[in-house]
């Protein structure tokens, strides 16, 4: 291995000679600086290569002596990785700094070299005092860098930074000298091997060392100085601070862990967790991106420190050090790359004071970096977080688990809020082009993706099918410039290929859902061809989401499942974000999506899912609740209407008709894995039933009052999901049959509705129902599609929807859920209100003169509708087409409640013959039609506006289209049921969190002295706690 001392010599020699080199030209000097950093990177990589291929860690003495006489450097895996990371961050930052370095005095370049060398020294040295020296080198380098390009705010921050740094270094010196005095060595390994530090004086001495490092790690509340610096410095410097510096300091902490006793470790863990929680709470209140990233940085570092300490405490993980290295290392790598990239990117945007949306490449990088930061798959943070959560659950550390997940959720909230802002930009602003400055972020994003994919494929998720969504997204993004039809066909082919590849691995249940999930994806990929042009971003995301749904079905282990689940969540979130008004809904979509996913994660991590016994209690309930959040059960449904309404019209359809079945599938899978039972027993089932019912009723009632078609449909979906949940909760053959039947039916008619509505919106250019009217003559096919869909949805015979109603009521009455039945009746009746309004306001009544030129929807929409109509008709005439497979699926897990006798389905209470119903209805209808035609004398078509109106003729058709606030009397009577309590609750919840964050951030007064006071008080309190522990 390369002796690291050469690199120090190189760095120092270069730095010392830099003033002379500078005489030859600044460009050459900077090349030298970059070259030295690159040399560090190369050395780090070469060490990694040696160590990963089985090489031993090596120690390098100075001055020809070894420890304890002389200072020793050590190159192990952690050190090699650390040096690589630092050099990489340094290089990325250095490129972004190039212009500033060229214009500023040479001191900047010298300080950069020194800072990076200092950080590497921190990582490599095994000597406590030498550690101090390197801490100071990097600190002074940092101080120099903060002010080098003469940003006024950065000068202020630098002074604050120095005060805190001075305090930390004094603490460290006091600690180090007493460690020497007590342990009679400065070498870490020797000191750790002895017992001299275990007494009270030793504890105090080590405490000082630790306190200094902790302060350097920017703990809450003693971190105002750092956050100020993050906010104000050149973004490249912030990147170094947040990425490289944090890495070095965490490795320093890691290094002294062997010196620490349990009490110390508890302090680290507690402080780290508090920092994580508080950092994210305060971060959520930030609207300045760089400061927000600063808070996020301190939070992440706190988490990593806490994990390392907890693992060391022995309370976590299986293999102790291995676990800590994997989890803390994974989190750190994730943080390092993501934060470096984000600081560079956000900083560049802020430097330009740009307010527009980001150009595609930068935006993609920003998306990857944000997603990685939040811990979405497949990035390294995801794998680390999974292991962490698993270990926490195994150890029963639920409260820590709650902090970790809660903090992550907050982080997701503010990071994605920023991303949303950058993805959309302010209206009327030109797109932001960062040019070469986006190279660093893009590189960081690529590295993250590569590292994450490598960690996943070679680790816990080797199944390539599960990676198909990512592959599809990547390929289609590369082809994003090509025409939409090509990408659409590719998407359909991808879904088909996935289905073909996965089909044999799926059992009946999964095949059943695969039809809806993959078929739905393909369907809406076709529908997306309705507009010409490339439709950038739509196809890749749609394909990714579709394949992710497939991956959910394919997954075998809890981790695979969760991986696919989060992939699906991420892809669908981006679909929502892509919509025109998608910024806000996407935020609540992802926050609730992740909230649900985190509950799911906790449950999956906690339970023994192979045996099924351990999972039946709390873990199962956690999973259940997580799935309910995703399903949009009433109370946690607030993300749903906006997301469905604001996303692109084909995306809404996909979300509603296909993707909403994913949680349903997962519920079935959950129950099946527990032996066809719900966790928690009969009470859960009853509660779930009522929840489903409340969702059904709530969805219907909310839908009644909407003016926006898509919101109506969104709430309608909510209601339909409610019925599915209700039936599922019955937990018997009847219930499950009903639930699956409803699910498939909902897929059919909701697809038709959304396709039709997409056409309508495309042609009319509005989503408000009262701005439409009389479109039946312009869009007859769409009308027919909507007509059939609403007949099916409302459950009016003879279409298949009635089957659902019949099954549902038979189930409920048979189960003895009488009151539930009554409420279900009511909810179903309410559905008529919005369904009538839907079809009336759009297709009937008075047409608007402005919409005289509206045409039928594009073929890409009409064709799928025709197919769906045919399918709907077929399953209505022959209910067995649908019910036979479903009954076979439900099988003999439960006593049979429904039995077919020919075409007649029999329950314990009654019977229903769908075919005969259809024949009778058809016959009667034909009879009446013939009667009508036979007696129709001299029919005359009159103009639409030719109506008799209470002895006067209204002047304009617009005023006679009764459509706005259609059910106002109903609101007057029952409006109290729909006062958006859930929205208000979550608003209040958000306000509460925000005010906690607001209160916490009052600590950050901006006064450097107050920050110093925080530091000293933090240390004092920590010391007192140490005494208590």
């Amino acid at each position, binding site marked *: 291995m390369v*002796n690291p*001392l050469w690199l*120090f*010599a190189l760095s*120092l*020699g270069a*730095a*010392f*000679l830099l*003033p*002379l080199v500078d005489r030859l030209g600044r460009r050459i000097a900077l090349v030298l600086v970059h070259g030295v950093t690159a040399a560090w990177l190369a050395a780090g990589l070469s060490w990694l290569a040696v160590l990963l291929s089985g090489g031993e860690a090596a120690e390098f*003495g*100075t*001055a*020809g*002596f070894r420890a*304890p*006489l*002389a*200072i020793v450097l050590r190159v192990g895996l952690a050190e090699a990785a650390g040096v690589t990371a630092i050099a990489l961050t340094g290089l990325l930052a250095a490129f972004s700094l190039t212009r500033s370095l060229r214009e*500023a*005095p*040479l*001191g*900047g370049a010298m*300080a950069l070299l*020194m*800072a990076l*060398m*200092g950080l590497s020294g921190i990582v490599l040295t095994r*000597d406590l*005092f*030498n550690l101090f*020296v390197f801490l100071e*080198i990097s600190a*002074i*380098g940092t*101080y*120099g860098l903060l*002010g*080098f390009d003469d940003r006024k705010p950065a*000068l202020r921050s630098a002074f604050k930074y120095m005060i805190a740094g001075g305090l930390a270094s004094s603490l460290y010196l*006091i600690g180090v000298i*007493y460690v020497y*005095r007590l342990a*009679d*060595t*400065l070498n870490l390994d020797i000191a750790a091997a002895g017992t001299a530090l275990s007494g009270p*004086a030793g504890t*105090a*001495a080590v*405490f000082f060392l630790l306190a200094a490092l902790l302060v350097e790690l920017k703990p809450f509340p003693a971190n105002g100085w750092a956050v100020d610096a993050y906010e104000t410095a050149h973004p490249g410097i912030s990147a170094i601070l947040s990425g490289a510096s944090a890495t070095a300091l965490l490795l320093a902490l890691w290094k002294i862990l062997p010196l620490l006793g349990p009490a110390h470790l508890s302090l680290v863990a507690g402080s780290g967790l508090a920092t994580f929680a508080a950092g994210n709470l305060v971060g959520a209140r930030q609207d300045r991106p760089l400061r927000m990233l600063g808070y996020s940085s301190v939070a992440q570092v706190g988490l990593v420190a806490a994990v390392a300490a907890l693992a060391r405490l022995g309370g976590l993980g299986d293999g102790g050090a291995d676990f800590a290295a994997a989890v803390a290392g994974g989190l750190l790598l994730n943080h390092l790359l993501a934060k470096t990239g984000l600081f560079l990117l956000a900083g560049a945007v802020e430097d330009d004071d740009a307010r527009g949306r980001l150009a595609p490449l930068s935006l993609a990088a920003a998306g990857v970096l944000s997603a990685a930061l939040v811990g979405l798959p497949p990035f390294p943070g995801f794998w680390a977080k999974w292991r962490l959560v698993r270990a926490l659950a195994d150890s029963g550390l639920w409260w820590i688990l709650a902090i970790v997940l809660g903090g992550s959720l907050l982080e997701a909230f503010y990071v994605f809020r920023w991303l949303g802002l950058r993805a959309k930009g302010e209206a009327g602003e030109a797109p932001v082009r960062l040019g070469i400055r986006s190279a660093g972020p893009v590189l960081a994003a690529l590295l993250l993706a590569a590292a994450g994919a490598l960690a996943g494929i070679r680790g816990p998720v080797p199944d390539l099918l599960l990676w198909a969504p990512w592959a599809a997204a990547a390929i289609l993004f590369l082809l994003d410039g090509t025409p939409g039809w090509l990408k659409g066909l590719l998407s359909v082919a991808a879904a088909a290929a996935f289905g073909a590849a996965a089909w044999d691995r799926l059992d009946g249940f999964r095949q059943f859902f695969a039809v809806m999930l993959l078929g739905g994806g393909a369907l809406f990929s076709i529908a997306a061809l309705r507009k010409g042009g490339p439709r950038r971003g739509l196809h890749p995301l749609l394909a990714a989401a579709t394949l992710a749904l497939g991956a959910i079905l394919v997954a075998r282990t809890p981790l695979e499942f969760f991986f696919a689940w989060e992939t699906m969540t991420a892809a669908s979130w981006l679909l929502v974000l892509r919509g025109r008004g998608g910024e806000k809904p996407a935020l609540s979509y992802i926050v609730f999506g992740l909230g649900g996913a985190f509950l799911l994660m906790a449950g999956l991590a906690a339970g023994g899912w192979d045996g099924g016994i351990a999972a039946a209690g709390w873990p199962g309930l956690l999973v259940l609740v997580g799935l309910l959040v995703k399903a949009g059960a009433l109370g946690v449904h607030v993300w749903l209407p906006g997301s469905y309404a604001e996303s692109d019209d084909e995306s809404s359809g996909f979300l509603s008709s296909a993707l909403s079945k994913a949680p349903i599938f997962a519920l079935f899978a959950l129950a099946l894995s527990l032996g066809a039972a719900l966790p928690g027993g009969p009470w859960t089932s009853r509660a779930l039933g009522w929840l489903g019912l409340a969702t059904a009723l709530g969805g219907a009632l909310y839908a009644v009052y909407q003016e926006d078609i898509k919101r109506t449909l969104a709430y309608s979906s909510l209601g339909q999901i409610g019925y599915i949940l209700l039936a599922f909760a019955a937990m018997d053959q009847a219930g499950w049959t009903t639930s699956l039947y409803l699910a498939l039916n909902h897929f059919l008619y909701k697809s038709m509705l959304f396709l039709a509505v997409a056409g309508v919106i495309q042609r009319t250019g509005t989503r408000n129902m009262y701005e439409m009217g009389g479109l039946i003559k312009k869009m007859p096919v769409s009308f027919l599609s909507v007509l059939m869909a609403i007949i099916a949805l409302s459950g009016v015979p003879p279409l298949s929807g009635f089957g659902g109603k019949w099954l549902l009521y038979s189930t409920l009455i048979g189960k003895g859920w009488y009151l539930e039945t009554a409420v279900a009746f009511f909810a179903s009746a309410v559905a008529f209100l919005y369904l009538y309004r839907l079809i009336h306001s759009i297709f009937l009544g008075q047409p608007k003169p402005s919409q005289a030129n509206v045409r039928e929807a594009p073929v890409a929409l009409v064709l799928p509708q025709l197919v769906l109509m045919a399918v709907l008709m077929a399953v209505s005439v022959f209910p067995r087409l649908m019910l036979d497979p479903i009954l076979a699926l439900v099988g003999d897990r439960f006593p049979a409640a429904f039995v077919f006798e020919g075409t007649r389905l029999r329950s314990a209470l009654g019977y229903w013959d769908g075919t005969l119903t259809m024949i009778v209805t058809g016959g009667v209808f034909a009879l009446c039609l013939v009667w009508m035609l036979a007696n129709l004398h001299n029919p005359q078509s009159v103009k639409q506006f030719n109506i008799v109106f209470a002895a006067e003729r209204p002047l304009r058709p617009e005023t006679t289209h009764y459509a706005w606030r259609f059910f106002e009397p109903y609101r007057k009577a029952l409006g109290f049921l729909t006062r958006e309590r859930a929205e208000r609750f979550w608003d209040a919840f958000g306000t509460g969190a925000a005010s906690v964050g607001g209160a916490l951030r009052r600590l950050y007064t901006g006064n450097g002295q*107050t920050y110093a*006071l925080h530091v*000293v*008080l933090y*240390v*004092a309190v920590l*010391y*007192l706690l140490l005494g208590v522990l």
Partner: protein
Amino acid sequence: MMRRVLVFLAVAGLAWALLPLALGSGVPEAPGALATAYLTDAPADFGAANIVTAIVVSYRGFDTLGEVAVLFAATAGVGALLTRKRLGLGDAEPEAKPAATEILVTATGLLTGLLVMFGVYIFLHGHLTPGGGFQGGVVIATALLLGLLARPESHLSHGILAAVESLSGAAYVGMGLLGAFLAWGFLDPRALPLGRIGSLVSAGSIPVIYSLIGLKVGAELSGILDALKGDRE
């Protein structure tokens, strides 16, 4: 008021934490094993009479190199911060500063040479007597400070300072590498013959290194003074 209470509490808390260390650990009876090893081995290892110097320059020479780097980084930082342009002085002639007192001027004339000589003495004898490169460098810088005080309008030659700083620093690194190639490790002073203990030319490259450090520190501190005065371009 609240703030004062908090400050008091903070200082009291810190005092409480210091109590077991600063007050409770007492005075040792004898040096520990490591110190004893240094005391007994250093003269033999390096032929340095001043054991502290042996430790500073050789055993823990890496620290010292780092310390030089710290000072260097600080100088760089100061230099970057306090240019005339950034201080808002621009190209304007510095305002006339009050002339120094005669005592100062006279004393400076007398002392400058002596101080420089004394500084050089200190770093040349670092391996024999108390003192070393830093102390010597500081004394030299003091001489230059006196000069600046006595003649406020005078300038230090930035170029020369920078050249001295750069070259001595690079030479120090070079000496370290020499140790690696000719002796047993980076910064090993045994690259040069050890000589007889107690004589000026002894202790291998320790005096050379200390001289380089002395020059470098002197130049750097002078540079800092120069910058603080507001004379940097």
